[in-house]
C-alpha cells in the first residue's frame, strides 16, 4: 500500500513535468492541448491518491511507515491522527503538493471569461512549482519511508500540540502560502504574453483567498500561543511567525494597489513586483518552517533541503525580475497621481508603509544569518527591535486607513474633507482626553488609542453617510438599506469591516503591550498574593490520575473589590508516555482584561509557585480576528452577478 503512495508520487512528478512542458508549448497560442490539461488532472489525482494513502495509514496505525510511527500513537484521538498529516516535515510537504495540485485544478480547469489565454503559461508555472515540491519530497523527505520492523506503538504527538490550534493553524497557514502560487503564475503568464490587465481578476481572487487563510492562520496561531504556555505570549516575533506575517502584509499591499491599476492603469510594475515578492515570501516561509536555517521556537532539522530552496528562491525571484526588466516598455503607467489629498496618494503611502514593515521584519528575521556570514558572530535582534520599529510603522498604516476612507477617490472637495477630518480628529482628541482624565500617562499608548478612535470614527462615519445617501436616493428603510448597501458592493464593505477589525485588534495589542502587570510568588495553602485590584488566595492543591495523564491542580480563589469573583484552577499535566509537563493556564477573561494564572511548580510541603499576569484588552485581539475573518469572507464571497473575479473561487 505504502509503495503505491511512493509510485503515485513518482508518476505525479512525471506528469507534472510533462504538463509544464505541454502547457508551455501552447502558451503562445493561448490554448492548452488536451494532453496538457489531462496531465494536470492526472497530477491532481495522483497526489491525491498519495495523500489519502498517507491519511489512511495514519488513521489505521500503520506503524511500518516511519512517519506514522513518529507522529501518532494508538491512543491519539482521530482529529489529531488527521492533523499528523501536517505535524511533521514529510507529511506537510506532501500536503503542500496536494493542495497546490487541487488549487491548480480549481484555478485553471473551469472556463474563465477573462484571462483565458493566460491559462497555458500560468498552468505551466504552477506545474513547475508542483514538480519542484515533488522532487523535494522524493529526494529528501518521502513520508512513505518504511521501518525495518513494525513497532507495537508509535511515539505519539507531543501533548503540547494536542490543541484545536494544531488542527487549524498549520493547514490555514500552508493554504495561504500555497494559494499565492496561483496569482504569481498568472502574473508571470501576463508578463510573458505582454498582456496588460487580464491577470488582475484571477490574481485578486487568489490573493484575497490566501490573505484570508494567512490571516486566519496567524490569528489562530497567536491564540494558541496565548492559551498554551511555552510559546511565550500571543506574538513573539519568532522567525516562523514572521514568515507567516510577511506574505500577509505583502498580500495586503497587493490588493490595495491593484485597485489603482484596475481603475486608473497605475502601478503596473509595482503590482507585478509585489506579487513576485509575496510568492517568494511564501516560499521563504515554507523554507524557514521546514529547514531550520534560523533558530526558531518552532522547528529544526532537514538541512538537506537548503540547496533545493535556495535554488528555487533564486530562480523564482530573479527570473521574474529579469522578465520585468525586459518588458518594462509595455508597462508604462497611464496616469499619474494627481494630488496629495487623493486616494491614489494614500494608497501609495499605504504600500510604502506595508512594504517598509515587511522589509524591517525581513531584516530582523534574517539578521542572525547575515551577521554570522559577514562577521562570524551571530547577532540576534530581540522583540524590542520589532516592536520599536514596526509599532510606529503599523500605527501609521492604521492612521492612513482613517484618512484614506475619508478622502474618497481622486481629489476630494476640500471643504467636505476638512469637515469629516475635523469630526474624526475630535473623536481622537476626545479619547485622548478621557484616557488622560482616567490617569493614563503613557503618551505612546494615549496617542495610539487616539489614532484608533480617529480611524474607527472615520470608517463608521463614512459607512453611515453612505448608508444615508442610499436611503435618500433609493427610499429604502432601516436595516434593509444597510443590507442592500453591503450586498451590492461586498468588496467595499467587507473592506470597511476588515479596517474596523484592524482597529479593534490594534486596541488589544496596544493595551496588552503597554499595560501588562505580572507577579510571581511561592505560596503555602491559605496565603494570598495581591496584584492590581485582585487578591488571589491559594486554597488547595490536588493530584490524581485522569485517563493517561497525571493532573496537578491548584485551586485559587479570586477576590476583587471585597467580593469573591471566582475560583481559577491552573493545572499541570504529565502524560504517561511523555516526559514533559503540559501547563494549562487558567484564564479568566473579561472585555477589559484577562487574569492569567500559571501553576509554575509545587513542592511536597504544599507550596505552589504561581505566576499571575494581568493582560489588558487581549480579548479585543480575538474579537478583532473574528471581525477580520468575516470581513474577508464578505469581500471574497462570490456574488450573484456575473463577476469574472469569482471565477474558479469555490
Amino acid at each position: 500500500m505504502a509503495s503505491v503512495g511512493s509510485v503515485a508520487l513518482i508518476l505525479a512528478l512525471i506528469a507534472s513535468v510533462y504538463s509544464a512542458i505541454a502547457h508551455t508549448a501552447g502558451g503562445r497560442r493561448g490554448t492548452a492541448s488536451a494532453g496538457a490539461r489531462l496531465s494536470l488532472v492526472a497530477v491532481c489525482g495522483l497526489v491525491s491518491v498519495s495523500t489519502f494513502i498517507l491519511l489512511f495509514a495514519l488513521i489505521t496505525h500503520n506503524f511500518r511507515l516511519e512517519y506514522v510511527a513518529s507522529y501518532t500513537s494508538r491512543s491519539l484521538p482521530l482529529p489529531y491522527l488527521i492533523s499528523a498529516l501536517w505535524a511533521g516535515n514529510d507529511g506537510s510537504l506532501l500536503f503542500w503538493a496536494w493542495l497546490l495540485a487541487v488549487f491548480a485544478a480549481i484555478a485553471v480547469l473551469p472556463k474563465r471569461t477573462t484571462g483565458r489565454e493566460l491559462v497555458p503559461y500560468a498552468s505551466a508555472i504552477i506545474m513547475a512549482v508542483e514538480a519542484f515540491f515533488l522532487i523535494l519530497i522524493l529526494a529528501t523527505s518521502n513520508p512513505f519511508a518504511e521501518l525495518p520492523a513494525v513497532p507495537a506503538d508509535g511515539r505519539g504527538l507531543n501533548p503540547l500540540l494536542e490543541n484545536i490550534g494544531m488542527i487549524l493553524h498549520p493547514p490555514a497557514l500552508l493554504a495561504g502560502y500555497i494559494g499565492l502560487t496561483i496569482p504569481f503564475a498568472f502574473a508571470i503568464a501576463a508578463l510573458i504574453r505582454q498582456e496588460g490587465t487580464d491577470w488582475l481578476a484571477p490574481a485578486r481572487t487568489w490573493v484575497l483567498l490566501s490573505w484570508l487563510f494567512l490571516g486566519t492562520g496567524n490569528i489562530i496561531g497567536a491564540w494558541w500561543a496565548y492559551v498554551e504556555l511555552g510559546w511565550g505570549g500571543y506574538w513573539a516575533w519568532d522567525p516562523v511567525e514572521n514568515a507567516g506575517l510577511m506574505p500577509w502584509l505583502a498580500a495586503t499591499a497587493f490588493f490595495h494597489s491593484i485597485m489603482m491599476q484596475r481603475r486608473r492603469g497605475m502601478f503596473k510594475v509595482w503590482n507585478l513586483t509585489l506579487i513576485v515578492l509575496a510568492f517568494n515570501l511564501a516560499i521563504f516561509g515554507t523554507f524557514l518552517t521546514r529547514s531550520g536555517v534560523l533558530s526558531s521556537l518552532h522547528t529544526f532539522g532537514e538541512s538537506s533541503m537548503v540547496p533545493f530552496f535556495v535554488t528555487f528562491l533564486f530562480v523564482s525571484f530573479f527570473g521574474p525580475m529579469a522578465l520585468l526588466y525586459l518588458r518594462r516598455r509595455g508597462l508604462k503607467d497611464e496616469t499619474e497621481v494627481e494630488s496629495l489629498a487623493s486616494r491614489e496618494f494614500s494608497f501609495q503611502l499605504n504600500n510604502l508603509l506595508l512594504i517598509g514593515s515587511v522589509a524591517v521584519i525581513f531584516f530582523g528575521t534574517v539578521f542572525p544569518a547575515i551577521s554570522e556570514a559577514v562577521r562570524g558572530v551571530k547577532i540576534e535582534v530581540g522583540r524590542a527591535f520589532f516592536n520599536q520599529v514596526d509599532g510606529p510603522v503599523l500605527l501609521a498604516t492604521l492612521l492612513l486607513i482613517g484618512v484614506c476612507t475619508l478622502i474618497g477617490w481622486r481629489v476630494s472637495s476640500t471643504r467636505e474633507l476638512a469637515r469629516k477630518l475635523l469630526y474624526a480628529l475630535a473623536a481622537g482628541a476626545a479619547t485622548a482626553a478621557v484616557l488622560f482624565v482616567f490617569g493614563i500617562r503613557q503618551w505612546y499608548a494615549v496617542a495610539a488609542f487616539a489614532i484608533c478612535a480617529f480611524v474607527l470614527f472615520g470608517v463608521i462615519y463614512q459607512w453611515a453617510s453612505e448608508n444615508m445617501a442610499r436611503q435618500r436616493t433609493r427610499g429604502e428603510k432601516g436595516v434593509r438599506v444597510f443590507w442592500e448597501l453591503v450586498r451590492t458592493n461586498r468588496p467595499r464593505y467587507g473592506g470597511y469591516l476588515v479596517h474596523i477589525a484592524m482597529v479593534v485588534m490594534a486596541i488589544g495589542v496596544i493595551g496588552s503591550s503597554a499595560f501588562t502587570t505580572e507577579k510571581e510568588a511561592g505560596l503555602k495553602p491559605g496565603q494570598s498574593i495581591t496584584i492590581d485590584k485582585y487578591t488571589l488566595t491559594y486554597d488547595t492543591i490536588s493530584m490524581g490520575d485522569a485517563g493517561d495523564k497525571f493532573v496537578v491542580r491548584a485551586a485559587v480563589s479570586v477576590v476583587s473589590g471585597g467580593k469573591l469573583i471566582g475560583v481559577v484552577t491552573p493545572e499541570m499535566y504529565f502524560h504517561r508516555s511523555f516526559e514533559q509537563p503540559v501547563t494549562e493556564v487558567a484564564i479568566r477573561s473579561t472585555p477589559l482584561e484577562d487574569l492569567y494564572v500559571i501553576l509554575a511548580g509545587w513542592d511536597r510541603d504544599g507550596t505552589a509557585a504561581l505566576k499571575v499576569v494581568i493582560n489588558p484588552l487581549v480579548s479585543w485581539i480575538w474579537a478583532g480576528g473574528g471581525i477580520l475573518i468575516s470581513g474577508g469572507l464578505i469581500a471574497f464571497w462570490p456574488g450573484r452577478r456575473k463577476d469574472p473575479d469569482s471565477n474558479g473561487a469555490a
Partner: protein
Amino acid sequence: MVKHKKFLIGGIIIFLATGYLAYTGFQSSATYYYTINELLAQKGSIQGSNVRVTGQVAGDSVQTEPATLTMKFTIIDGPASLPVVYKGAVPDTFKAGIDVVVEGRLENDGVFRASVILTKCPSRYEPVKSS
C-alpha cells in the same frame, strides 16, 4: 514631473524614518549569540551585557525551588559548561538533555543569570534528523 518629485521626497522621508527607527531599535536590542566556549573566552568584555548562549541542559543538574520560583541548572557544550540561574515560569518543553538558549548576563561569580529561557520546539513536532 514636479509632482513626481514630491512623491519621491515623501518616499525618501518614509524610508529615512523607518531606517532611523530600525537603527535605534537595533542599537537597543541587538544581542550576541554565543556558544559556551565563546562566552567564556570573552569573559571580561561582555560581563554585564545582555547575551544569548546556547547549550544542552546537563542531566541531573536541574534543581528547582518552587517557593521562590528559582531554578538552577548547568548547560554544557562538549567539555565546556556554564551554571545558570533562572527565576520565573519554565517553558513546558524544558528538561534535562534538551538544547536551550538562555538570555541574560554573566555575573562576576561565573554564574549566568538568565532572564529568558528559550526551548526549541516540542521534539515530536520536528525530530532532528540531520547530524
